[in-house]
């Protein structure tokens, strides 16, 4: 009977799960992908999942990617749903990115910077030609890069520090009186949002959406004219102060990408003309995300700097409410849920309107 067919059942769900498992495994003649292979050889995908999943754990992120058949948003979902059940045992000290063990460091503002530019591993200067050699596995020793003659300096300052001292770059100070940093994973977004909320929101936000917003700001739907003050990739130590010790201990290193954008600010009655900053930070190597984040951060500072908010990227509620890809993907996909009851209500209403309209029509004809 048709009535039964429109309802889903327990069996259908079980069968669907089996079908996922089959599709995930693919052709059984092909060796199964290991989580370690994903972690080692799909590193940038792992970085994105760690960043938006808000968990720095390469193995779990790789597992999530394997389980999700490589679907980044689904993998991020898996990692977040795992994260949410974890107890919180400490809050780390502020990361000191000036002490980063640098793998890449580039500034667009000065040709020569103390400590030097470091190109690092970037796709920027590769020609995007399919490398057909990769079709077949190659011996491992072929891929070793050369080691530099001398090691990089450690503890290098920002590329733009030299002009910071002239007062040409906004000095960043922690907001007065603020004790604890807002925790977006524990508290709902509260508007108007402070910069802590905003940066957390953007760091977890969907890369595509954040980069798209940043692009809109550059293309005329925003007031951004940013320079990459510096973008750097490398390892930093995470330190916590255990209560029973009372001093900081390092619990491990994480790789992060940091971007500081400088944006020309014409000055206001209170502030002289100077370069203002936008900040971006992401887990792993994800410069695109960190740069997009920095541009959006700066755009959203318009109210604080007394600039007129005219574009979507400057609209705090619009941006911050729509960055999270779990929320966005979840709500869009929920439309596949049945809406029989709602549809029936609208269907009935439309029928009623049409009936009344044709009734009017007949009445008029009768009158004429």
């Amino acid at each position, binding site marked *: 009977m048709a009535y039964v067919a429109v309802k889903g*059942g327990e069996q259908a769900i079980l069968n669907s799960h089996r079908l996922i498992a089959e599709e995930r495994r693919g052709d059984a003649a092909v060796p199964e992908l290991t989580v370690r292979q994903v972690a080692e050889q799909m590193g940038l995908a792992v970085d994105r999942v760690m960043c938006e999943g808000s968990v720095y754990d390469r193995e779990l992120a790789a597992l999530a990617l394997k389980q999700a058949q490589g679907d980044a948003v689904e993998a991020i979902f898996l990692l977040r749903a795992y994260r949410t*059940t974890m107890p919180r045992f400490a809050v780390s000290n502020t990361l000191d990115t000036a002490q980063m063990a640098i793998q890449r460091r580039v500034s667009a503002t000065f040709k020569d910077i103390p400590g030097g530019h470091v190109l690092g591993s970037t796709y920027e200067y590769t020609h995007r030609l399919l490398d057909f050699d990769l079709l077949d596995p190659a011996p491992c020793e072929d891929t070793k890069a050369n080691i530099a003659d001398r090691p990089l300096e450690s503890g290098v300052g920002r590329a733009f520090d030299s002009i910071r001292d002239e007062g040409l770059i906004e000095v960043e100070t922690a907001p007065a009186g603020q004790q604890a940093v807002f925790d977006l994973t524990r508290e709902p977004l509260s508007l108007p949002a402070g910069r802590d909320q905003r940066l957390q929101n953007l760091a977890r936000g969907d890369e595509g959406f954040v980069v798209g917003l940043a692009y809109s700001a550059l293309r005329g739907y925003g007031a951004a004219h940013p320079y990459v003050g510096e973008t750097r990739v490398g390892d930093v130590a995470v330190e916590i102060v255990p209560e029973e010790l009372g001093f900081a201990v390092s619990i491990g290193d994480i790789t992060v990408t940091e971007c500081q954008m400088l944006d020309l600010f014409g000055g206001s009655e209170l502030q002289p003309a100077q370069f203002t900053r936008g900040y971006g930070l992401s887990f792993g190597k994800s410069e695109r995300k960190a740069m997009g984040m920095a541009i959006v951060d700066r755009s959203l500072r318009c109210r604080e700097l007394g600039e007129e908010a005219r574009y979507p990227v400057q609209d705090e509620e619009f941006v911050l409410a729509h960055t999270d890809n779990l929320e966005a993907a979840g709500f869009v996909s929920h439309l596949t849920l049945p809406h029989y009851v709602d549809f029936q209500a609208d269907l*009935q209403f439309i029928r009623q309107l049409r009936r009344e309209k044709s009734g009017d029509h007949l009445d008029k004809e009768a009158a004429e």
Partner: protein
Amino acid sequence: MTANQEGAARGGRRSAYNFAYLDEQSKRMIRRCILKAMAVPGFQVPFGSREMPLAYGWGTGGIQLTASIIGPDDRLKVIDQGADDATNAVSIRRFFKKVTGVETTEQTSAATIIQTRHRVPETALEERQILIYQVPSPEPLKRLEPREAETRKMHAYGEYGLMSVQLYEDISRFGHIATTNSYPVMTNERYLMSPSPIPKFDNPKLGKNPAIQLFGAGREKRIYAVPPYTQVRSLDFDDHPFKVQRWTQSCSLCGATESYLDEILMDDKGQRMFVCSDTDYCATRKESQQASSNDGTSGSPAHPSREAEKGPNS
């Protein structure tokens, strides 16, 4: 990576999840928000909505409410569009079975907690029951004013003129208020509230209800409540009083004339039938009819010729 995490990474940690999935601190935080919501009926309380293993938009608000109040002795019923056997209802019920081990039921009267999407059960609820609504958009003013900074002020000042204007514009355009579901209500004569996307047919069931009604919006991170026996009034005008949907048809399975009906397409020639959207209500009526017809009394089920009716457009 800790040993625990390594265990988890290998999928051997299912038992390590807390009762009802959420940790006790999160549950307590949600229960505090529920108490606040109960104290201020219809007011949207922000809460630290957690990521759940089900997607946003699929009932995470309702699931968090259920998870934070459910105990081992509860009996849970989950419905979607009125039906216990709809896929998402099955999925949520399975989730709670797995993480709590509580007894589940399809019988409205046997349940202590009922989680619902888009319907209020036809069977009247009692004082010992809690009805939990899954809410996609908690803010009734959102379509009129998308900015929360503004809508918060409108609620604070009780400035609901915009909604009246919207309803009036509907009447001037269509001759009717064009809202058929999520029909706005005034709770306790103070807060304008969205009853969630239930059809307006269900609105009268919200007011003076003996059960506790909790509304959870996970993605939007809001909880609100209608405590037992609270007044809930659907907005209307003196010359356009609030009216619920009525069908000319009755349920083809149980013959009900007072229930919300789903329209079922039978074939591609416009053959259709109407059946109760509330599957438990329909099944219970059929059973009692069969019982009474076995007793030799009347109680005729729907006439076969009524099973398939031609729709008005065919």
